[in-house]
């Protein structure tokens, strides 16, 4: 076990993958200086400017060129700086990368990891704070990952680079400094959820930093006599329906919590699936927590109005139990 922060974990995984496979390379803005959050610190010194390529501020070209390079046999790791900026490359991701294999009748692969830091990060306002994971889940062809711990960021980054599908890799900006023990030999199968806490009374389903909030909420609930199970999906496509459905069959109660806008969010997919597959097991009302359908403001008190809080999760869990 090695102690690492969230940002160190994916950086170390990337470094090891680049050492092991010379077709892996990184492409994006300011990578030589580590990029915005230090995700690439030291890598250009180690691997040189060809494999850690500094680019113009050209999101469409970063995404499109990485795709072209993937089709001729390389494995690019693409940096978009903020998930918001990746919207400048939406055609490249949605119309080109996600569709090529199907449209070309299976002739092509796009083994790419597309890194898009997401989430609320104090006073970053409306164009640097979004979590749009549900958009990507809606696009056939993409894999969508949302790691929430250093261990997952390490093991899932490695699995993402090995994957032959295009992977949208969403790291939450709020937890770059989160520390944890990492077992560097641990392999994680993409699509498998983590049961972060076992419990008998209510199932809390979440991902990304909100999963960490659910773990906190579960501790608070335990002190109040409620035994919550926390499922961190980690991967939104594919997602671990079996883990969620079997947990709800055990607890009979469900809360889904995520940071992104509740309307049309992936929480709706989770709830719908549970109702279809384990509706008979539900013993209380389902609760779904997400942001109001508004924009993220700059002022801290307004920004806070977009947050799902630990207290909201605690309250929702108790409501499913009629408390």
């Amino acid at each position, binding site marked *: 076990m090695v102690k690492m922060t969230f940002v160190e974990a994916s950086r170390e995984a990337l470094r090891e993958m680049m050492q092991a496979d010379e*077709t892996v*390379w990184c492409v994006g803005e300011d990578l030589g200086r580590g990029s915005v959050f230090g995700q690439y610190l030291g890598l250009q010194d180690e691997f040189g400017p*060809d*494999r850690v*390529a500094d*680019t*113009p501020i*050209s999101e*469409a*070209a970063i*995404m*499109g*060129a*990485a*795709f*072209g*390079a*993937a*089709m*001729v*046999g*390389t494995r690019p790791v693409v940096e978009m700086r903020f998930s918001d900026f990746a919207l400048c490359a939406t*055609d*490249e991701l949605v*119309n*080109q990368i996600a569709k*090529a*294999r*199907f*449209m*070309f*009748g*299976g*002739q*092509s692969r796009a083994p790419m990891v597309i890194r898009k830091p997401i989430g609320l990060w104090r006073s970053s306002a409306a164009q640097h704070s979004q979590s749009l994971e549900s958009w990507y889940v809606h696009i*056939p*062809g*993409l*894999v969508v990952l949302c790691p929430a711990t250093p261990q997952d960021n390490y093991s899932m980054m490695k699995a993402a680079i090995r*994957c*032959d*599908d295009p992977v949208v890799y969403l790291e939450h900006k709020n937890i770059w400094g989160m520390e944890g023990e990492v077992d560097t030999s641990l392999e994680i199968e*993409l*699509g498998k959820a983590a049961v972060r806490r076992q419990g008998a009374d209510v199932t809390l389903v979440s991902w990304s930093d909100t999963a960490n909030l659910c773990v906190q909420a579960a501790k608070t609930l335990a002190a109040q006599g409620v035994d919550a199970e926390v499922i961190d999906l980690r991967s939104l*496509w*594919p997602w671990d*329906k079996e883990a969620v459905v079997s947990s709800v069959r055990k607890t009979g109660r469900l809360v889904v919590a995520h940071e992104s806008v509740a309307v049309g969010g992936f929480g709706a997919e989770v709830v719908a699936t549970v109702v279809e597959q384990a509706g008979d097991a539900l013993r209380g009302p389902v609760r779904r927590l997400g942001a109001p359908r508004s924009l993220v403001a700059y002022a801290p008190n307004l920004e806070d109005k977009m947050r799902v809080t630990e207290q909201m999760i605690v309250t929702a869990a108790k409501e499913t139990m009629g408390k």
Partner: protein
Amino acid sequence: MSTADHNTKRGRDLLAMMERIRAFEEQACLAAERDKLVLGAIHPSIGQEGVAAGVMCNFNRDDILLSTHRGHGHTLAKGADPLAMMRELLGREGGCCGGKGGSMHIADFGVGMLGANGVVGANITIAAGAAHGLKLQGSDRVVVDIFGDGAINRGPFLEGVNWASVFDLPILFVCEDNQYSATTKTSSVTGGPGAAARAESLGLRATTVDGNDAEAVADITAEITARIRAGGGPEMLHAITYRRTGHTSFDPAGYRPNGESEHEAKTNDPIARQRAVLAGMGLSTDELDAIHAAAQSEMVQVLADAAATPFPADEMALQDVQDIGSPAQEAY
């Protein structure tokens, strides 16, 4: 082979390729309009064959091509099998893409053709990236990316051409300028002097050529590709031609000045011009007609064979989406 023989052979090859492209697209239009066998849109390049034949004769099978929604000619000239292409247009099993792409998404990775594209200009960044990937791997292969005049007004033109310049990539950008952006005259929606000047402003050498003079296109492309293969970096070829049909085969093109297309057909047809060049080299009318007849009979047979091919199996609708979380494994 003497220089004269060599010139005659290349001239015949250029004519033969243009005749094959023309015949393929005439059959494709018949399949669409007469036979109702092509259900989606096709975008013919009739009248533009000089660019496809003249450019592509300078590239090898393992070089990389990316093309546009109007890309049948480029793809045939890269060496793709016309029967697989026609099956693709008809949405049939055995099409280049198994009937899942259609005319606008034809790709044949076996001959280095990495895809036509339904989004104008989108291939430019992808092609630059293919060249980037080849350079990273130390390959001596090169990339040719063909796009239309409409594409120079899209952002990916700036981003992709700048990218190729910054990373000094082995790629030829060809702006096949047929003068129309869908149904709008391109000059009416383009600021400044256009494609070549825009490429030059990004540090590329740019050359303008009469795209309906297949010999001139082949000559200039040979010079350019020699420089690119020698490590000279990206270049732009601006080939001026004319789109004789509407935007799609269903478009009557009533927006064009009366007689414009007919005048071009009479005075500036790349096939007629190449026949004249070959007649000047001593080929007889019978020899030239035989090249025409061979292309016609090849493509009539291609359409007949394609039409006799079954549609793909229903389960293909869920195949080749992705490895993990594929719809064949998932309930949704």
